[in-house]
């Protein structure tokens, strides 16, 4: 493995790891706030217990998200010093604002986790909401930074020099809105389905049914709303990519030949040597329509992109297909679920519904990873689109494959521990939060 590939892999691994924790960290506080709100309004201790159980999970995820994020802020320099030297002052604005958002989040979380029973209950509730809002804000800001790499604005690039730098313009580049919107909704969908799936499984196993059914309902409602909005925002994203990064669109859709009325290609194995996509389903004119709102608008293909500027088509195309397929599947579940809670309440505890949600547990996160792969691999060979090549940004330090192996081992072990902890957390629900299954056992445990 050469240094360059190792650096890219290490970056992808760290980001792919971090994003899972950051999504959960920015969405779970909202679930908790809802459950906490129901408890404060009704006094039903079931919801108090759900809130407490979730807050412990969030603390674990928050800590893991925080350290993996800290690693990232160093890794940008460790792996891509040449990129950071030029880009830091330009796209740094959102990062410096993000610092404030993170700080507020950490402070509010301190109040929320340790202030229970010590402060006014509505004050504690409000700090929980602040955790969620500042998490969401930091998500938006960091995505704005990434969007700048796709649509570099706010400077003039003359003779290899970056001049007239304007960090505010850089932050509000043309890609930030669609990416940030899509990312926020994705976080809700992914976390919602993951949490709902776990609680559905426990209801299915007939463990602490009342507890898990109530928790399921909160998570599934969030997930359903997000999953319905997701394709709409994805459409905005796709139109934006078509406008700003035609090469990425070509890679996503496997457009090897420029065509006037480009078909939407589903599946298939793209072959850049022959310019054919084999074994694919083609829907004539649909891609032109989806990207430009016109059945006959030409779509730029690989034949019009210089060879050294073509992104890898295979990875990008497949990742895109996976994301869209999962998005559509989640959309269907979401529509079904909304119909059930609005019209068909009797289906709520049907086994097949639980099974469906159990099946969807990992889907949101798989789609998130796939989506980021589309964004990042589809931008190649550029690290700053059209300005700086990724290859020119990599660190001169030799031996990066070893740090890549090391970090892979660390992240695998961490994931294993987090899963293990989560398993124990769920296993203990009966003892700590809901002993309705086991009334004989009077267990009064100090929740803290």
């Amino acid at each position, binding site marked *: 493995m050469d240094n360059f590939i190792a650096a890219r892999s290490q970056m992808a691994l760290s980001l792919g790891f971090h994003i899972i924790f950051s999504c959960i960290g920015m969405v779970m506080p909202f679930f908790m706030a809802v459950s906490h709100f129901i408890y404060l309004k009704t006094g039903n201790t079931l919801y108090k217990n759900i809130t407490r159980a979730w807050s*412990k999970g969030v*603390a*674990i995820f*928050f*800590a893991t998200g*925080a*350290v*993996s*994020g*800290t*690693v990232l*802020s*160093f*890794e*940008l*320099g*460790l792996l891509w*010093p*040449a990129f*950071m*030297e*030029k*880009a*830091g*002052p330009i796209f*740094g*604005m959102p*990062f*410096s*604002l993000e*610092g*404030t958002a993170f*700080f*507020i989040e950490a*402070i509010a979380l*301190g*109040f929320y*986790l*340790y202030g229970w029973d*010590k402060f006014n209950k509505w004050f504690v509730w409000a700090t929980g909401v602040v955790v969620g809002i500042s998490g969401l804000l930091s998500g938006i800001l960091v995505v704005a930074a990434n969007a700048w790499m796709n649509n570099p604005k706010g*400077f003039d690039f003359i003779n290899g020099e970056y001049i*007239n*730098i304007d*960090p*505010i313009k850089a932050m509000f580049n043309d890609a930030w809105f669609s990416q940030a919107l899509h990312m926020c909704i994705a976080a809700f969908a992914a976390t919602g389905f993951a949490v709902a799936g776990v609680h559905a499984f426990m209801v299915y196993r007939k463990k602490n049914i009342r507890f898990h059914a109530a928790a399921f309902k909160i998570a599934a409602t969030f997930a359903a709303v997000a999953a319905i909005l997701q394709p709409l925002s994805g459409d905005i994203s796709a139109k934006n990519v078509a406008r700003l990064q035609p090469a990425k669109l070509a890679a996503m859709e496997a457009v090897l030949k420029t065509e006037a009325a480009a078909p939407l290609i589903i599946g298939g194995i793209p072959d850049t040597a022959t310019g054919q996509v084999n074994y694919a389903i083609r829907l004539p004119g649909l891609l032109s329509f989806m990207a430009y709102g016109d059945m006959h608008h030409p779509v730029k293909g690989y034949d019009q992109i210089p060879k050294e500027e073509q992104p890898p088509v295979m990875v990008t195309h497949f990742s895109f297909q996976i994301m869209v397929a999962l998005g559509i599947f989640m959309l269907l579940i979401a529509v079904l679920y909304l119909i059930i809670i609005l019209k068909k309440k009797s289906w709520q505890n049907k086994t097949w519904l639980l099974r469906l949600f159990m099946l969807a547990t990992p889907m949101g996160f798989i789609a998130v990873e796939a989506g980021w792969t589309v964004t990042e691999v589809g931008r190649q060979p550029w690290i700053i689109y059209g300005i700086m090549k990724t290859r020119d940004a990599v*660190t*001169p*330090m*030799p*031996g990066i494959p070893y740090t890549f192996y*090391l970090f892979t081992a*660390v992240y695998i072990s*961490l994931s294993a*521990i987090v899963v293990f*902890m989560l398993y*124990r*957390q769920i*296993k*203990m629900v009966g003892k*700590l939060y809901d002993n309705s299954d086991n009334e004989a056992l009077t267990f009064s445990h100090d929740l803290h």
Partner: protein
Amino acid sequence: MLYVVITFLWVSLWFYLLFGGADFGAGILELFTRAHNKDRTRRTMYRAIGPIWEANHMWLIIAIVILFVGFPKIYATMSTAMHIPLIIMLLGIIARGTAFAFRHYDAVVDDMQQVYNRIFTWSSLITPLFLGIIAGSTVTGKITQQPKDFLEDYVFSWLNWFCVAVGCFTVAIAAFLAAVFLIGEAQGEKDKRRFIAKAKTANIAAFIAGALVFFASLYQHIPLLDWIFANPVGIISITAASLSLILLWYLLSKGKVKILPVLAGFQVTMILLSVTYIHFPKIVLLKDGGYLSLLEHEATGKTIDALGAALLIGSLFILPALFYLLYSFRKSANRTKA
């Protein structure tokens, strides 16, 4: 605005040294606590730092962001030359942060606690050690912008007596800060005496490590003494630190602990002030005799203005909130103790 940004950089390093340092120190103390006392040390520590430990480590992120936005050349040079120690420090940060959360939030309390504890205490030692090593490397004049030789430029630039001595000094300071902060948190006379003894030991360790730094600087021809005693700020701050040290020992032996944390914080502040003042604005000394300067290698354009504005606005939100967090938990901790 440039001076606003530099002030924020200094303040975040200062706060990280004080609060993050005390945090690391608590883990270091736990490592050097006898088995039957470990549990009580741990509980005292949770009460003291639990609510703010996440915030304590934000200072490092703020410092890093200021560096890469405001002083990209310094960030890029340091993260290339210090690749290896930074990686080790990052592993320490990962291990420590997760182990702290895991041992507190694991729903089942069993043998896994031993694993978390061991990871936590060792990484509490390793992380500040490497932080100190990296800090030391900025003034040894071994960093180059055109690294060629692997051992010379990526390894010996930080693996040398001076840097390691600075690392040990950092560790000792962290342990000292923690011990002093924990005295006030102790429940009962016995624990109080235990932490007082620890504070004394850590202070002696810091003194020895400081002497090591001095000898290493002689050995490596780093004119440390000239730097410190060639300017009034250096002389005044070192004198003030020494005088307060005498006062501190006096109070320690009398068991008067109320203002100890302030004194300890004051000493550490004076040390940081003296070493940073001498070098300002030359923050990194290079191998070729050149340097990287906060006043020459800053970002251009509107970046510094925007960064300064963002930091000022941010601190309007952060500082009152942080203060209120500290204040209210202090109050409730005192109530539970009484």
